[in-house]
């Protein structure tokens, strides 16, 4: 960072596919982000409260507590609802219906992911 106070930005990935999570984590860490992962909505909610991330990457379709539950919780909390959410989904319609800050279609384009994270964490 050239100017301003530089702090490490924290990204929360809520995604049930461990392999995809792992990869995103590796790439984001190389970009000097701090990455927290959650494999379902419940873990995601716990991490959200505990770590107060700067950006959330959210998969909608997860077993148990899913993306919708997660969003309901986040949006109901005044101290959390400002955190930008990037929804990752194979179904554009589903993603758009929840009106996220950004939507990335699956299969993921990694460059697009990095650009989007950068934009919302700035």
């Amino acid at each position: 960072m050239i100017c301003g106070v530089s702090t490490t930005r924290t990204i929360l990935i809520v995604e049930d596919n461990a392999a995809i999570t792992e990869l995103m984590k590796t790439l984001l860490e190389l970009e000097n982000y701090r990455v927290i992962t959650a494999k379902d909505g419940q873990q995601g909610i716990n991490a959200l409260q505990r770590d107060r991330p700067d950006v959330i990457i959210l998969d909608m379709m997860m077993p148990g507590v899913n993306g919708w539950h997660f969003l309901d919780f986040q949006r109901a909390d005044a101290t959390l609802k400002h955190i930008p959410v990037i929804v990752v989904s194979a179904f554009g319609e589903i993603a758009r219906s929840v009106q996220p800050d950004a939507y990335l279609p699956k299969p993921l384009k990694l460059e697009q992911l990095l650009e989007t994270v950068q934009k919302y964490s700035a």
Partner: protein
Amino acid sequence: MLPRARILVIDDQPANLLVVEAMLRDSDYEVVTAPSGKEGLARLHESDFAAILIDVQMPEMDGFETALWVRARGVRTPIIFLTATPRDELHTMRGYEAGAMDFLYQPLNSEILRAKLSVLTELYRGRREMEIRSAQIEAHAERRYRDLVEGIHNGIVWTAVLGTGKYSFVSPSAQQISGYPHEAWMTEKYFMREHSHPDDRQGLVDVYEKLVANGGDVDFEHRFVRADGSTLWFHTTIRVADLTGYRELRGLSVDITYLKETEQSLRNSITLRDEFLSIASHELKTPLTPLQLQIEGFQLLGKRGELTRVPPEKLAHMLEVSAAQVHTLTRLVDQLLDVSRIKSGRIDIERADMDLTALVRKVALNFQINLELGDVSLELDLPDSMPGFWDPVRLEQMLVNLLDNALKYGMGKPLRIVLRQEDATAHLTVTDQGIGIAEADLDRIFERFERAVSAGHYSGMGLGLYITRQIVELHGGRIAATSRLGEGSSFTVHLPIHERPAPL
């Protein structure tokens, strides 16, 4: 030998009767006499005659009148009039009008009488023979039709007089097909409607009403409830026959239950196969997606010249994850191949001396990366060794399937593998504490393409347990599952411990 031909002689003069009798004595004729037209007509009822001789001049009923009555009764037997009156045309005309074949004049000439009778008898015999033959043909044809009708075992031939609500004929197969006695079919009013499947009753009434209104024929399918309560399917064809004074329904109801069941099971198979194809393609795609992403990740890092910035242990880990995806893909493809091998009976086991404890340890080690990704612990409770003579490749596959399921449905809770020996049997139990299986589903989970929970969030093609069961059974063993919904499942494999057969 031909039977003697009977001749009826009607004459009021006993002397004349005696003359005819005398003339025909010692011949092939049996003479029956009657002293009046009335008596003669009565004789006609008693037997069949080759010819009738009638005296023209008789009191009360003369010969012509008698002849008219004979014909009026439908008797076609040739008639010869006997008359003493010299021939005159009017007389002769009356005779022919009354149905005469010929006239004989009295006094009778024995030669002429015999000659005429012999011609008539020939004719009579020929006619009789034809009658008998045609009656035989008729009887034969009728027997044939009856045999045909009675020989129909999968269908019921029936007739019903319109408006009576009852059958007038029902073929014997009805009893066997429906379980109701033949008598019930014949006596119960609206039998078919009353025993129809409730959902088909109205349809049946509609068909009948349409048929009654428009005539013609119709064919349709409907369900019938057998005496034992089971349902059968009929394909019924009905035609309305217009007979004098009434109309008759003629029907054939064929039992097509077997056909319907086959059709349904085919439909189910097709649905199952379609579902399977959609699950299989989804399953194959699941490990492909992260693999693709990973390669893309490396490409991205390579393009930016950042590959070297990735810490070596991180790189190793990423590759390990990739390898796990490739492994999953391979396993899915292997499963598909196995199923087709099992289906065609081409799956074999190749036994070798092996240690089951060692194999469990090896599989557990291979699962390490999957366990780590899911943050799941695995406890092993094994004897030091358990030697046996099994197929190591197939048993490994079995273990992978069981462990894979435990991991998949285990909700991240600890897993456990226990291996015990009891007499000559190895008992291997894989236990999870996950979602569990409803009791109703326990039986079908070992079937092909079956799974207890809907595809939703649980991946897999529904082949693992099916293949596992086949492997276990090929080893002469069996597999059983116990489970409680929400508390987890236990799969136990009981394998007979074979020893390598002694070399011959």
